[in-house]
């Protein structure tokens, strides 16, 4: 596969390490009433769609960016690649 890195252009996916569901950005609040339940859900439950999937890739053998890649799990087609840091900020990670 080829991942179009927003800064570095097309890179072979073999340069990257895969983590998984981009929802892992949304780490729950440790002080929430039901923090344990929220963290369990965050840590273990996955949508795992057959279709469009937003997922985290780390450019381990590159510039060490974490990316959010939007990829179809049936066709492997990649439609969007963003810096995870930008996504995290845009989606409200405020620390």
């Amino acid at each position: 596969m080829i991942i179009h890195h927003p800064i570095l252009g097309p890179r072979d996916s073999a340069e990257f390490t895969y983590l998984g569901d981009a929802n892992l950005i949304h780490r729950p609040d440790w002080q929430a009433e039901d923090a344990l339940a929220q963290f369990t859900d965050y840590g273990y439950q996955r949508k795992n769609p057959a279709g469009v999937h937003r997922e985290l890739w780390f450019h381990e053998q590159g510039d060490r960016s974490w990316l959010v890649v939007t990829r179809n799990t049936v066709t492997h087609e990649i439609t969007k690649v963003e810096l995870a840091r930008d996504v995290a900020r845009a989606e409200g990670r405020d620390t």
Partner: protein
Amino acid sequence: MRYSGLRVIKEALTGHRGWGPAWRDADPKPDYDYVIIGGGGHGLATAYYLAKKYGKSRIAVLEKGWIGGGNVGRNTTIIRSNYLLDGNEPFYELSLQLWENLEQELNYNAMVSQRGILNLFHTDAQRDAFIRRGNAMMLNGADADLMSTERILEKYPFLNVHNARFPIKGGLAQHRGGTVRHDAVAWGYARGADQHGVDIIQNCEVTGFRIEHGKVLGVETSRGYIGAKKVASCVAGSSSRVMEKAGMRLPIESHVLQAFVSEGLKPVLPGVITFGAGHFYCSQSDKGGLVFGGDLDGYNSYAQRGNLPVVEDVCEGGMAIFPMLGRVRLLRMWGGIMDMSMDGSPIIDQTHIEGLYFNGGWCYGGFKATPASGLVYAHLLATDTPHPTATAYRFDRFERGLMIDEKGMGNQPNLH
């Protein structure tokens, strides 16, 4: 019809006119007591034991394509019970014992071949971990054998020990492990289930569940609605897709695992062998092809095909221990969907929906589990209590902190 050598001879002499269908192609009835979703090895075995051992009837197996077309039809055929953790080992040992009697049980030769499995190790820390595991196996009643490099070389004299990047320091063997003719497992269980009255319905895809007041009433399918008292999902790599129709999210990701077969060769490998410093394992089929595999591609996928980097990685592992394989040709590679769970161990449990049961999360270890998975799932369906060897395979083990993590990789499915 009973199969036997005599019968084969008799049929040969009379033009093979007497062989009937190995199983009937059934059409769906309006309702059943038990509907099993998924005509793979596990689903067919579940139906078989539910009918045979637990005496249940009015059972249907629904298969969206052709039976045995999932992972039971595309794996590397290995059976073993060399697990470390008490949540796993008794279950897999039960499975191995069922394998040992499978052919007589089913009157079908699935070519269960206990030619042994050997895990090589290359560091002291790996040896320590394998000793712990071998002891755990023996304490659970399984067999294990710690082999020195010298003993290993007697069986595999062609292993690379002269200029290896990671020298072999020994291995943990399970001599009762081995291989099975994988397709025959599905057919054998299908034939057995059919003989006990199970309806095997091919080309019947489940498109939804009918659920009222927290209770499942039946399934919508491509061949119409089918009512059921109990519905049991058993669809491995498609688990998330099917259970999503019941509104459930699962602690499972679907990943692609590639497997490989070489051109046929005169006998090369006597048993199953795994490399401990790279991703490579290999055995030789009775037909002569080397059957081998390695690591997951590593990303979520339902595509049933992989990419070149892992192909290269696997072949590099092969050449690392067997440099004689350079001129052997890879014939075919394929990919299957692995239902990778969050701790690398399966789930066999009731769901929060009454009458709906789940069996999945087999990662890439589902084939060897087929007989036991069928048996314990049938036990759960018939009695609503978990089988004694499968009490740990619960949904709630993650919230309770009771993970069964053989590899110690945590909640990252692609590392299990």
